[in-house]
């Protein structure tokens, strides 16, 4: 029997997820989501307008302003920035989380957004304008080397990653374990840059939409071994981080990380880890 590369890849990754305790089918889907832009309106006001137009929305219980479910909103919410913070969003474009951070900060304080891709910065700029954000500075450049001349109390590293098959129908066709390893290396470079930019006592929120442990718990284990940081427990819906990966035991503290799985949480794959620089 001839098996296509896509089928072989799919089986390879589904077998890995099974070893991590999840029986995924590779066909899971998630609903679309909206976030109320509190810079411009309130939940009540928007719901009134949309209800008047015949649109029915269900509140996502664990999101402050999310309706019908996007776990990626959980990243900025977990970072919990305030108006007194100087925040860095390291891989910011197209700006979904940047605009959410600005809203949580009440459009005050100082928010730096960096991205290396000018095409994607165009989308970021449009989103900042559309959402009425005015506390943000956007820099074009490589987040690993760009000199911003300041340190930050909060950093969001929503790292470039392998993604996951729930949001990308061609994922099994286009991804291999080599991509996962390459991305994990890039993520470590970004983590080093994040630590350099963070002031002592500052908080880093690391997020990926990858299901692969190499880009998630294994990177966090590496960070704990090589930098002065402590992991902070993330509570709420979703699941704890893995402490055993393909037969390899990891530190128990990695359970403080957080995961969303397509089968048990009915969302796309998502990983979060919150660390404080000591």
């Amino acid at each position: 029997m001839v098996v296509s590369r896509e089928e072989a890849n799919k089986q390879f990754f589904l077998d890995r997820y099974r070893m991590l305790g999840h029986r995924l089918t590779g066909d899971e889907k998630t609903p679309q989501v909206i976030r109320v832009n509190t810079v411009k309106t309130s939940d009540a006001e928007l719901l009134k307008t949309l209800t008047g137009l015949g649109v029915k929305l269900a509140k996502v219980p664990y999101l402050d302003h999310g309706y019908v479910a996007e776990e990626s909103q959980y990243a900025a919410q977990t970072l919990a920035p305030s108006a007194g913070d100087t925040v860095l969003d390291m891989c910011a474009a197209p700006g979904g989380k940047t605009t959410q951070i600005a809203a949580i900060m009440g459009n005050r304080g100082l928010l730096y957004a960096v991205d290396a891709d000018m095409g994607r910065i165009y989308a970021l700029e449009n989103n900042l304008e559309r959402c009425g954000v005015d506390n943000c500075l956007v820099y074009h450049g490589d987040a690993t080397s760009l000199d911003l001349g300041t340190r930050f109390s909060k950093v969001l590293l929503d790292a470039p990653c392998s993604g996951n098959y729930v949001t990308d129908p061609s994922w099994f066709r286009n991804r291999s374990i080599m991509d996962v390893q390459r991305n994990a290396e890039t993520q470590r470079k970004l983590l080093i840059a994040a630590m350099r930019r963070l002031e002592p006592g500052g908080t880093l929120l690391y997020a990926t939409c990858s299901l692969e442990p190499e880009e998630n718990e294994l990177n966090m284990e590496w960070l704990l071994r090589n930098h002065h940081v402590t992991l902070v427990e993330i509570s709420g819906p979703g699941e704890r981080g893995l402490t055993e990966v393909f037969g390899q035991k990891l530190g128990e503290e990695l359970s403080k990380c957080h995961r969303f799985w397509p089968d048990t949480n009915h969302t796309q794959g998502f990983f979060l880890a919150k660390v404080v620089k000591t």
Partner: protein
Amino acid sequence: MRLLRRFLEQVGSMMDPEALKIDSKRFTLSPELGRRRFSRENLVYAGTYLGRNRRLFEPSSLLLQMLAAEEGTRKVHLDRDAAWLFVCGRDIFEENVKRVEGVLELGRYYLVMFDGRCVGYGRYETSAGIRVIRNLFDLGDFLRREGSG
């Protein structure tokens, strides 16, 4: 600043913002942001985006909202149907203007209002003998611009 000032005059604004230049784009900083020191190297966007210089000044939606809140700026108010056509990129016939703040004068710019908020702006002109508010920018542009960009 010259093109920005000319635009502000055209809509009857008294605003005189201190604008930060980044290439052709113009920004203004909140007092809080203005007090902070930050690097200008590789900076592509800062604070509140006012618009950009092309042949004429192209205002941002943020500037239009600020101007809409300013008393004395020229405005035309539309009903729901006309506003819907406008945000789909259409011009507005004079007879579909529900109310005017200021006086309609050919060649002037007008903020286009629906339900208390600015949905774009246009120029009052004659097209094939018909008087219209020519659509120069509407909020539907956010849905169109990245697709064509």
